[in-house]
């Protein structure tokens, strides 16, 4: 457990935003960092509530794998799938370059 009262600094927020693939403006960094620290402080009370013997719950009902019969079912046509794409070319999604200069 982190011992001191948790905090998200402006620098940490910028790093987290990069991980989450969101550009944040300077004004947003100033505005959101203290709010996130307050939220984090209020949820930090959860530490120590449950002992090691308590198993985690990921879903309210037990999950079992579900199979369906291996038969073809109708799906979307290429036109339907591409109809709302920002850009399409030759029946494919057209996307910006995915490799950097150094790659």
């Amino acid at each position, binding site marked *: 457990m982190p011992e001191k009262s948790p905090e998200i600094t402006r620098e940490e927020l910028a790093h987290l935003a990069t991980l989450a693939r969101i550009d944040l403006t300077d004004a947003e960094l100033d505005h959101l960092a203290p709010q*996130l620290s307050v939220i984090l402080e209020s949820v930090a009370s959860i*530490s120590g509530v449950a002992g090691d013997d308590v198993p985690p719950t990921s879903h309210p009902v037990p999950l079992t794998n579900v199979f369906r019969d291996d038969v073809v079912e109708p799906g979307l046509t290429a036109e339907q799938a591409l109809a709302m794409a920002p850009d399409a070319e030759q029946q494919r999604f057209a996307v910006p370059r995915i490799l950097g200069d150094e790659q």
Partner: protein
Amino acid sequence: MSDRIHSTAAELAEALAAGSVTSVDLTQAHLDRIAAVDGDVHAYLHVDAEGALEQAVASDERRAAGTPLHALDGVPIAVKDVLATAGLPTTCGSKILEGWIPPYDATVVARLKAAGLPILGKTNMDEFAMGSSTEHSAYGPTRNPWDLDRIPGGSGGGSAAAVAAHMAPLALGTDTGGSIRQPGAVTGTVGVKPTYGGVSRYGLVALANSLDQVGPVTRTVLDSALLHELIGGHDPRDSTSIDQPLPGLVAAARQGAAGDLAGVRVGVITELAGDGWQPGVMARFEESLELLVKAGAEVVEVSCPHFVHALAAYYLILPAEASSNLAKFDAMRYGLRVMPQGIDSPSAEEVMRATREAGFGDEVKRRIVLGTYALSSGYYDAYYGQAQKVRTLIGRDFAAAFEQVDVLVSPTAPTTAFKLGEKLDDPIAMYLNDLATIPANLAGVPGVSVPSGLADEDALPAGFQVLAPALADERVYRVGAALETALTEKWGGPLLAQAPSLESTQNGALA
């Protein structure tokens, strides 16, 4: 039937069956009401007048031929904008999906269409269902029909306000931490969160998969039961869908409305009261308890000691799931694509970052960052792992409580509707609205909110929540309907009859 827009869905279904009204009449009356009052309320993001009337014409033809598809065939409905509707815009209240038209229907929407219910339009919501006031919608807030300066609850404030303002007899909502029940409480309407897995999530744009559930938003408990039976039941397209028949919900609502609760054990949750609970909300809650006792129920107090940690667990689990779910909004296959300023030939990652900056609002950014933090290495065990363990303890609290009682009750929300803007930039104050509704989502159990009356301080609606064990949804309908009947008798009519009419000339009265 009193008139076209003030009648319940059950009454409308009877009138359609008797031939005293047509679906075209009903649908047009609701479209007229929308035109008259939604400029003020803003419950709808999109109204499909043409499509709804086409469906109504087809419904009337089926009635005339003696081949209705369902008892509710021809009764119009509104759909929360988080559910995919083929051919109708689905934005989730976000700029990132502005103008997106899904190529498929959510299973619940397909079931509405298969039963012949005309779809009036899509209702407003907090962006991606993150919020308790509908103020986080990128398209502007919905206003509470009881007081246009106040919030209608959230995230499903649009559906609740549409039903409260008689702009639809029925609506669909979704409830991840209270987004059906809390808007129900603050608008004087009825909302049900079914057992997790009881209603298909296929085509519901996921906020938090392990918590989300689709459910009915209506003005009466019986109407919710009718709609729940229509949309519920197994769906092979949702791997968490429960593969067994629903219990008899309509029958349970009718049984409850008969007023006899003899032998029913009701538990009042100790932890969901006290400081911070508005006195007028508590007063209506206590009165409602007395009515349940009068109906024959045995009321006891039950402690659920870990509920005090539910809010903290929820605000770790939900952001964690949401940050993962919303990663799909990457500007590549659908939705907004924004090119970053001042970069020649930007990379896909740079485009994604610029798009999410422009397309997401503050609350979505807050929760994605929080979720990213809670899931990052070094913090995972301390936050997300702990939250999942607390989830186990909350489930155990429910299990222990339901060994003593048949249903658990509390006020639905700690306060009545607050003013627009009051809590917009104070996330913690906003989160506290869901204090009483969140435990049900963490444990997957069903719950209803029924109007309990108007608080003395502000003459605004309060809600009474009934929770039951998973798969025992019929219990919330039975107890909810019994309370509704007793209260309606006491008030001399439905609570909504006391709401402002919102327009000087009343639409919809039958000539």
